[in-house]
């Protein structure tokens, strides 16, 4: 008897959970046309808890800030923006469920996923709904491949890798380089592959290549030794700031004084990671479209507002999300107030948006063209270095 009671109890819990999963949406799930309601609903999926939470939270905060500012200035075509950020913990399966929840909520425009892995899956799910996607930070090439309604704010990986190789050549930094990349990370491997391909064309030799995985990102002594022994003057490190901080801490004092550590926008935030000793980040050369200490008044205003609201300096992820929301605003206005996937996609290719990550225009394949500059860090201060990158690069897919 008690067993049956228990079983019934479990069944009730199950039913309750199912019901608690949101009410059935009113719209039939197609396109997200702007209804007579007063708001435009924006949705984003990302890791808000768990080990990657800092990335998801950056995106959420950046987007929230933009929404707040736009709403205060009167909204988009008179309509207020509403943002909903759903947690995926970086897991693709969870992200797809989160996307489902957003659709039930009545989302009109989708800001995509945060990490490349989950983005690919949610974009596939969104394709079936003809939803317009303004991807913030998912940089792997495949994320928006084959989806004509998906556009992206951040650089895509092969673009950055190619640009990095060209930057090296244009600034005559070295003919021989070493590489350290994370083989199980989309961003890192994507940049690396493009970098290698472009280096072959520009005649730069890659003398030493070292790798690591998420699981082995604590001990870099082997990699450090190999790179030091190879005697290269530039080490290409297309990795994220956290892993870079560990590597640089272990590399300190082992490399020669004039060796550069050259990376992409993933290194953003490196100073914060080595706050206990900022000289660890010395000689780090970061190629990035967004620099929090830029003198551009637009960037300054953004950084100030973000710091006031969230008590931290915004990073690349926050800046991308901020620009994504403003771009959506521009696209909706250009499309005459419509939020249908087809209208917005059509409007994108003729847009120019001046965001905190640069002046952006878009190709039909969804990728953006914007410039990147390089910042050199010394004693905790970043200064512009060398010629602007990505201006001579072809926008090859």
């Amino acid at each position, binding site marked *: 008897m008690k067993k049956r*009671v*228990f079983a019934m109890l479990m069944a009730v819990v199950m039913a309750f959970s199912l019901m608690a999963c949101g009410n059935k*949406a009113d719209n039939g799930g197609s396109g997200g046309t702007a209804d007579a309601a007063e708001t435009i609903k924006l949705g984003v999926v990302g890791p808000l808890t768990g080990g990657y939470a800092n990335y998801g939270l950056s995106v959420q905060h950046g987007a929230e800030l933009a929404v707040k500012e736009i709403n205060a200035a009167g909204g988009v075509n008179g309509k207020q923006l509403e943002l909903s950020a759903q947690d995926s913990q970086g897991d693709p399966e969870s992200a797809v469920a989160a*996307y*489902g929840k957003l659709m039930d909520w009545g989302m009109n425009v989708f800001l995509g996923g945060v990490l490349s892995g989950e983005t690919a899956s949610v974009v596939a799910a969104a394709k079936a709904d003809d939803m317009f996607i303004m991807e913030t930070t998912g940089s792997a090439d495949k994320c928006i491949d084959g989806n004509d309604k998906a556009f992206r704010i951040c650089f895509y990986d092969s673009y950055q890798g190619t640009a990095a190789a060209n930057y090296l050549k244009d600034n005559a930094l070295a003919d021989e380089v070493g590489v350290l990349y994370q083989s199980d990370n989309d961003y890192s491997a994507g940049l690396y592959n493009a970098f290698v391909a472009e280096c072959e064309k520009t005649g730069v030799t890659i003398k030493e290549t070292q790798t690591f995985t998420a699981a082995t990102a604590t001990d870099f002594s082997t990699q450090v030794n190999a790179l030091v022994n190879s005697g290269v003057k530039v080490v290409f490190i297309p990795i994220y700031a956290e892993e870079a901080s560990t590597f640089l801490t272990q590399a300190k004092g082992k490399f020669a004084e004039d060796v550069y550590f050259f990376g992409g926008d993933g290194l953003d935030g490196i100073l914060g990671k080595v706050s206990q000793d900022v000289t660890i980040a010395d000689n780090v050369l970061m190629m990035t479209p967004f620099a929090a200490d830029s003198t551009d008044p637009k960037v300054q205003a953004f950084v100030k507002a973000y710091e006031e609201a969230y008590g931290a300096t915004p990073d690349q992820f926050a800046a991308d999300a901020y620009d994504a929301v403003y771009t959506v605003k521009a696209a909706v206005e250009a499309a005459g107030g419509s939020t249908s996937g087809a209208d917005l996609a059509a409007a994108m290719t003729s847009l120019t948006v001046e965001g905190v990550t640069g002046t952006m225009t878009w190709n039909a394949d969804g990728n953006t063209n914007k410039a990147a500059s390089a910042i050199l860090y010394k004693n905790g201060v970043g200064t512009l270095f060398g010629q602007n990158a990505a201006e001579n690069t072809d926008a090859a897919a």
Partner: protein
Amino acid sequence: MQLTQKKRRRGDLLTAAAVAMLLAVMAALLYTGSLTRQVTNMLIPTAVYIVMAVSLNLVVGLLGELSLGHAGFMSVGLFSGCLVAIALTNTALPLAVRLPVSMLAGGLTAAVFGLLVGLPTLRLRGDYLAIVTLACGEIIKNIITNLRVTGGALGLNTAAIYAGAKELLPYGAALVLLTVAVMLNLKRSKYGRAIMAIRDNRIAAESVGLNVTRYKLAVFVIAAFFAGCAGVLYGHSLANIKAAAFDYNMSIEILVIVVLGGMGSVPGSVVSAIVLTVLPEALREVADYRMLVYAVVLILVMQATNNPTMKRFFGSACKSLTPVRKERAAL
């Protein structure tokens, strides 16, 4: 003895019928469009986790050995099966042929790995066996991550075979029913009894002439087969899969499902899998505390089912969660 057997048969039929009915209801709701998007997106993962939990229960509940590498079998099946499926998309075969074929391919590959993992565990028991299975799971993860053919570290691009819940549910339902049926039957058969005998007292079982090696290997192979099939289904519901996701953390998640449902209990695993897949979605607001709560609940459940004082405290609601090994007193 006859009476208890009859009672058990009836219990089994009830379980199978309940599962079938639940699947039918979900299918009806899905195809009439009465489900929310969120729930629709949860159907396939739930089915997958049910199969994973029920198959792990074979190792943990019936054989009484802790396998911490179950996610590794799922991953092997997923990658091999999905590679076959992607290759088959070039032919003109319909989904109804492609999916079962790739599931079979995935399941068989996983079964082979089940054998490979089972072999080193023959001489081991308890803690050592658990750690070896964990190590094997990690080795598998590492190998798949380094292979070019599975997409390497960046994962396999399954956009070509991506399908929504509406297309995949029939296959998911079929797999769930098959797994449940096989497990229930196995439990009641002489093979099941042999396996439970090995769990309860290995030396006595050996002395009666049971071939421990054969049964241990068979358990790993069967459990791995179903995990592999589930993996293939899972692969079809996502556009990009990385082997790194199938590490010991996922194995432990499935273990939690099995333990909370009651070791050796098939209906328990089914219910527990559904609850533990659905609950996180329902509790999105308190996601921060979710894992913490899970951990606490796990510890409490283990206390409740093993400690005499706690058992009295929680009363006989625990009866259904008590490890099956205690039931032998009833025989």
